[in-house]
């Protein structure tokens, strides 16, 4: 009698029924989903005042409070979210409505992430944002990526962005035993990725923000009854492209034509495709289960994931289990909001011996994989003298032996999380206090075992080593925020002031090396049981945002950071920013415009710092002891050396000034939206590894604050909803970034004769480098000899005498192109028709050059017909150059590696409601192909290798994924 029912129908803006929308009573777990005809019914509701809440993805939430006195009919008309304008975006220390924010910010939500087999979170946004370049390090399971936001601002220090998860800034420290620290974060737990690009957005992170900031929020609990999601993916990985090396037949012909009798006699009698021997078709599975809802007014989300993936390189394997918990209860009449995030991950990895990749290209294809011998029965090149057989020290080792006879296994545990308490002060309206305590702890340990008979470690009697490392990072932050709307003067203010304390502690356990039989390798005993490098950062920060009449916004922020890495007099750095925004479409002359729905001008300036990659104690004059293997003999005793370390007492922050001008636009009721930005970034006091006068310190190169780098660029993005109706949706997105990078100064004293700092180590010889950082050129410019050609063929060893002094030496090297792309583009589209959906992501780079190290190393006669007792394979490059000896520094091996790649092609079928009596479960089936094709003129392994040096590169597999997704 005092309970009633509520029923009704949900329709969309065009009057069509909306199935699957959630409707429930606020503050209770009572709720249901609309049926196929949009109807719903809630029964057994206590009479009285109740608030109904309706939610449907892509539509604005609705609420209606009714005074229930009997069965009631409530129909709702839902309005689609007029795209992003009302969306709230996270910014540093808070959030803001998208229409109001002043900085250059890009956000990607879960529904727009890259699909398919994604094991590491940064891959979710590859190609999705202007100005953000995500390049995976290769195809190994869980391997990481290089993330560059608007080009790199640094030369010797780090160019990695700061990553902040749920408000907790992470350190970029490696975790021993993990291919990549980010792969301990389950991509399935991530709700949004927000990238802060200009200084107006990043400067609040001060000294860690020069390379941009990536804010990751993870999925949270929701009010309402429990929702369970189960997803399962099965993936198949295949090597798409193998290297173009000589086949056994071609090889035999080459040796028989060009070799001497001894070399011909070395030919084997079989034919082995070594690349087929080291690569496999691999399988992976990724299963995730989550439950989210509300328990006694406490929203929660609990999820678990299990990933098991093999690599295309034989023996490569990653298993990962993750668990995540979020609780976000409110107390004190919702004045105190608590947000608790706890994440845990365990991974077991076996790392394949990646030197097998290069060895497979270089190994004689006429030899068998297995023979009977003392090296585990893998064929190896040996020499025999006086009846003693020894491994030929100059030859490649058997690629299959390299893989099968090395067990490199690790176990990593990581847990990170935070508790955030946000308290709305009772007596001052608009004043909040926020306390955020976070931690990130991990333990990585592993073993490397190579049996004594394995050729790869025959000399040292095998390997049986262990390692262990612990990371214990802590974060504490507190801020006060005051936000108030002064309607009478059409003004709003939003002010924040805070304090942060960050502690980074790593414990590296030090072990002796062991032979396979467990004997200690002499000379390897550590002098200390462990090392505990530690760094701290203390920060004060503030931000003030003032808006007038919803049209003009002026924002400023200031951060003062203190770091333990610097001497007390240089320890503190001040990082300000200032930004102005004009919402032009709010002016009267545009307010009524039908075509222009959003137009906003953003102008900003800011200064940020960078200190990642700087040694922890480099300002301190210290003495340290050498390892046992670096002792010196006096008499019959060996003394470990005690030596003064180089130091720079004046080392301080690197500082980047960023100017940004941007326009956010929206046309046709925001069916078309996007942004254009131009930026200019100038880094000064570059933390640069420069030569110092020998004799002035305990080394001849030091990381110190000298040098300037400029990055200038334009970004453009456009997103369009080309078709949007009840049965069909078609969305398209495109972004393009042009970035021009130039070094403007490198030395304390200007000297035009200084060539620059060599970089880009290559394989071949000892210590060869192929790139240089020089003033007036882009970073990582190639530094090569200019090849002379005759009849279209390169002439071996003949280069242009660019210095004109009659000899060819280092002075004739010239700078030619860079590995940095000038233009990066991303395109994505999704077409949905009724239950079917097709999506695609394409990316392109223009102007990136690649050094084909493999061709330079293998494609010469003396590599096949080696004079010291073995044969080696070559790429088919050998037919083109006909070089006899290696010519590593010829520009002949540089190629334009511009490319167009289809990252992803996906198909989804929404089966609809299945299972159970009331068919409440919703099933989707999806199929994806990743790394579908690459269009490029570059003829090496892959045109997209961040360093610009193609050698021993783990191929990115072509991946086929079949997945199911069940919601109930």
């Amino acid at each position, binding site marked *: 009698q005092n309970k009633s029912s509520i029923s009704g129908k949900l329709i969309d803006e065009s009057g069509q029924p909306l199935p699957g929308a959630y409707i429930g009573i606020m503050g209770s777990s009572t709720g249901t989903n609309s049926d196929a005809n949009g109807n719903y019914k809630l029964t057994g509701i206590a009479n009285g005042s109740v608030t109904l809440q309706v939610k449907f993805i892509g539509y604005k939430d609705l609420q209606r409070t009714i005074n229930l006195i009997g069965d009631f009919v409530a129909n709702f008309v839902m309005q689609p979210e007029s795209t992003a304008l009302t969306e709230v975006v996270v910014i540093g220390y808070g959030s803001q409505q998208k229409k109001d924010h002043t900085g250059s910010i890009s956000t990607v939500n879960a529904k727009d992430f890259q699909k398919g087999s994604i094991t590491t979170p940064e891959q979710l946004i590859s190609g999705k944002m202007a100005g953000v370049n995500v390049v995976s390090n290769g195809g190994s399971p869980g391997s990481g990526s290089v993330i560059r936001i608007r080009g790199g601002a640094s030369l010797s220090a780090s160019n990695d962005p700061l990553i902040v998860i749920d408000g907790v800034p992470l350190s970029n420290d490696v975790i021993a035993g993990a291919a990549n620290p980010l792969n301990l974060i389950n991509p399935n737990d991530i709700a949004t990725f927000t990238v802060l690009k200009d200084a107006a957005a990043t400067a609040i992170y001060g000294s860690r923000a020069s390379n941009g900031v990536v804010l990751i929020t993870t999925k949270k609990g929701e009010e309402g009854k429990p929702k369970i999601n189960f997803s399962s993916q099965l993936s198949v990985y295949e090597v798409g492209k193998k290297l173009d090396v000589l086949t056994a037949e071609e090889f035999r012909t080459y040796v028989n034509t060009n070799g001497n009798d001894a070399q011909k006699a070395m030919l084997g009698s079989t034919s082995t495709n070594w690349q087929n021997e080291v690569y496999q078709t691999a399988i992976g599975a990724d299963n995730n289960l989550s439950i989210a809802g509300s328990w006694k007014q406490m929203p929660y989300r609990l999820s678990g994931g299990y990933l098991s993936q093999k690599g295309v390189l034989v023996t490569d394997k990653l298993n990962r289990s993750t668990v995540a918990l979020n609780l976000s209860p409110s107390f004190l009449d919702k004045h105190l909001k608590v947000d608790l995030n706890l994440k845990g991950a365990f991974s077991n990895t076996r790392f394949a011996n990646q030197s097998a990749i290069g060895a497979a290209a270089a190994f004689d294809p006429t030899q068998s994989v297995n023979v009977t011998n003392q090296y585990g029965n893998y064929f190896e090149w040996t020499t025999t003298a006086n009846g*003693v057989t020894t491994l030929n020290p100059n030859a490649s080792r058997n690629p299959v032996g390299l893989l099968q006879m090395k067990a490199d296994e690790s176990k990593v545990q990581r847990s990170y999380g935070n508790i955030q308490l946000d308290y709305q002060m009772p007596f001052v309206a608009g004043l909040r206090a926020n306390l955020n305590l976070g931690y990130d702890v991990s333990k990585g340990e592993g073993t490397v075992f190579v049996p004594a008979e394995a050729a790869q470690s025959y000399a040292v009697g095998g390997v049986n080593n262990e390692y262990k490392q612990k990371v214990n990072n802590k974060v504490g932050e507190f801020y006060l925020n005051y936000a108030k709307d002064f309607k009478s003067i059409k003004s709003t203010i939003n002010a924040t002031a805070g304090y942060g304390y960050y502690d980074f502690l790593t414990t590296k356990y030090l072990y002796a090396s062991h032979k396979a039989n467990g004997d200690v390798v002499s000379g390897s005993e550590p002098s200390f049981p462990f090392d505990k490098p530690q760094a701290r950062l203390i920060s004060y920060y503030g931000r003030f945002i003032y808006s007038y009449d919803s049209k003009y916004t002026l924002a400023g922020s200031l951060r003062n950071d203190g770091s333990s890495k610097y001497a007390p007099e240089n320890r503190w750095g001040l990082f300000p920013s200032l930004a102005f925004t004009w919402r032009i479409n709010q002016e009267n002359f545009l307010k009524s415009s039908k075509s222009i729905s959003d137009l906003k001008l953003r102008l900003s300036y800011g200064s940020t710092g960078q200190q990642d990659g700087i040694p922890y104690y480099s300002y301190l004059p210290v003495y340290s*002891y*050498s390892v046992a293997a*670096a002792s010196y003999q006096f008499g019959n005793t060996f003394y470990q050396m005690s030596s003064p370390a180089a130091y720079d*007492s004046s080392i301080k922050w690197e500082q980047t000034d960023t100017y940004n001008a941007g326009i956010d636009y929206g046309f046709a009721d925001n069916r078309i939206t996007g942004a254009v930005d131009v930026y200019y970034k100038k880094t000064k006091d570059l933390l640069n590894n420069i030569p110092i006068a020998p004799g*002035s310190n305990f080394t*001849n190169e030091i990381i110190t604050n000298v040098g300037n780098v400029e990055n200038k660029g334009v970004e453009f993005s456009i997103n369009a909803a080309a078709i949007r109706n009840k049965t069909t949706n078609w969305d398209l997105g495109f972004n393009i970034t042009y970035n021009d990078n130039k070094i403007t100064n490198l030395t304390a004293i200007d*000297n035009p004769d200084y060539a620059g700092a060599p970089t880009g180590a290559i394989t071949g010889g000892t210590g060869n480098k192929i790139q240089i950082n020089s003033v007036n050129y882009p970073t990582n410019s190639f530094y090569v000899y200019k090849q002379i050609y005759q009849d279209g063929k390169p002439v071996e060893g003949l280069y242009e005498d660019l210095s004109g002094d009659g000899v060819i030496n280092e002075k004739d090297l010239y700078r030619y192109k860079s590995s940095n792309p000038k233009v990066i583009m991303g395109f994505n589209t999704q077409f949905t028709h009724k239950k079917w959906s097709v999506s695609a992501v394409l990316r392109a780079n223009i102007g990136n050059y690649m050094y084909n190290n493999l061709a330079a190393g293998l494609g010469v006669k003396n590599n096949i017909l080696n004079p010291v007792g073995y044969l080696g394979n070559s790429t088919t490059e050998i037919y083109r150059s006909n070089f006899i*000896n290696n010519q590593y520094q010829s520009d002949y091996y540089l190629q334009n590696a511009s490319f167009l790649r289809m990252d992803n092609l996906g198909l989804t079928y929404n089966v609809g409601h299945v299972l159970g009596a009331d068919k409440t479960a919703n099933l989707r089936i999806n199929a994806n192909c990743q790394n579908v094709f690459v269009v490029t003129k570059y003829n090496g392994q892959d045109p997209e290798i961040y360093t610009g040096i193609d050698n021993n590169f783990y191929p990115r597999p072509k991946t086929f994924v079949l997945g199911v997704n069940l919601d109930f």
Partner: protein
Amino acid sequence: CSNDLNLTPTNATTADAAYANAQGYKQVLAKVYGSYAVTGNEGPDAASGDVKGIDQGTSDFMRMFWSVQELSTEEAAIVWNDPGVQDFHVMNWSSGNVMLLGLYSRSLYQITVCNEFLRESTDEKLASRKITGTDADEIRYYRAEARFLRAFQYWVLMDLFGSPSFVTENDPIGKFTPPQIKRAELFGYIESELKAIEPLLKAPKQNEYGRVDQAGAWALLARMYLNSEVYLGAGKGKFNDAVTYAQKVIASSYSLNPAYKNLFLGDNDKNNPETILAIAYDGVNSQNWGGTTYLINAAVSGAMNPPEFGIPSGGWSGIRSTKNLPLLFPDYSGNTDKRAIFFGSNIEMNDLLVYTDGLAVGKFSNITSTNQTPPSPNGQYASTDFPLFRLAEIYLTYAEAVKRGATNGSEATALQYLNQLRSRAFGNASGNISSYTLDYILDERGRELYWEGFRRSDLVRFNKFTSDAYVWPWKGGVKDGKGVEAYRVLYPIPSSVLVSNPAMEQNTGY
């Protein structure tokens, strides 16, 4: 909270703690010496060593010194493509050469470490650290030895680069620009230092193995005086001084090692009466990819039976000789003059980059005199010590100085010394001589001292380094050899030194 920002490393310490007691001083002394024997504190495979801008394994003092002294001559040529190494044999190096930068930096690095030790070992510092008595006396010897090593490295810089940067213990660490010192002035400085420490060093053979004694200072003085015309200018030779200091060494308790080959084997730190000072290497305790590990492995190929050289897993097929070296011996088979230790069958060098073109040199080996292989964790690190000064050189210096006009020695005595070397080489008197010329001395130095890091200096002194009066295969980049610019008798000041130090002026020609 700001005090929370004062953090210190776990396993490192302050200078005061490092020098707290006599043992601490000795461990820093190990660095003072060790900085020319190993490439860094963290072992040979660490990410970086003491000297930057060059591969750590290559940044070893002896590997670089040997390369610029030997690869630039008829004694050695290399097949590798490592940065800049090909420049030496074809004689087209520039100021951008990485190895020259590495060597210049290594020498000044050791000098800087010596300077630091001198700052920290003054009588006042010892007193303040309460180190007294025999401990303090021993540390005063260390001080003299640090000054010797500093003088030795200044000699290296003076010989190769002419007028290098100059720093002493009176200069600070950090923002400081070392001035350039003129070659002749540096000669005077080294001379005065060596004479000043003469009474402060231990008497010949009274020091521990690996550490220098008075004979080391005399030997370096003799070497400098022999080359004095090169350093000071024609007509400014100090050959009487060369004889004086050669005689001091000869009169001391050093004597020839009866077996020539034992001077260059894995146990040459034992029972070796001849070597005055050597860089001590050890396959276990002083691991290094340079030093004799380099010299032996690079000289041997996998096809030459590496275990016979005490490097069971080694043999890198890198360096070998041009025909001029074996042809210094009338019979280079080794059957008559046992100093000729060559391998291979192809004396001609048709391709500069093919290891088997030219004879391999087996003079240095890691095997011991009793045919044992010293311990090494990887079958490659060598334990053979590299002689910096040995008595045979002093004999040759005496003879040459007399021939160059010294009046305080005699050719008769010189012949005695030369024939002692000949008798050892031949095993009997059949190779003995009754007279000699200056050119004979150059050839005999080649036969006796080849691959020991002397050749470039010797050819410069005899005006045969750059000129076309004497050529060898691939000198000047052509197969038959040709002369090159005369300014190449000096190496250029590395360009990055000019950049970092505006006080430096480049050598003529570069």
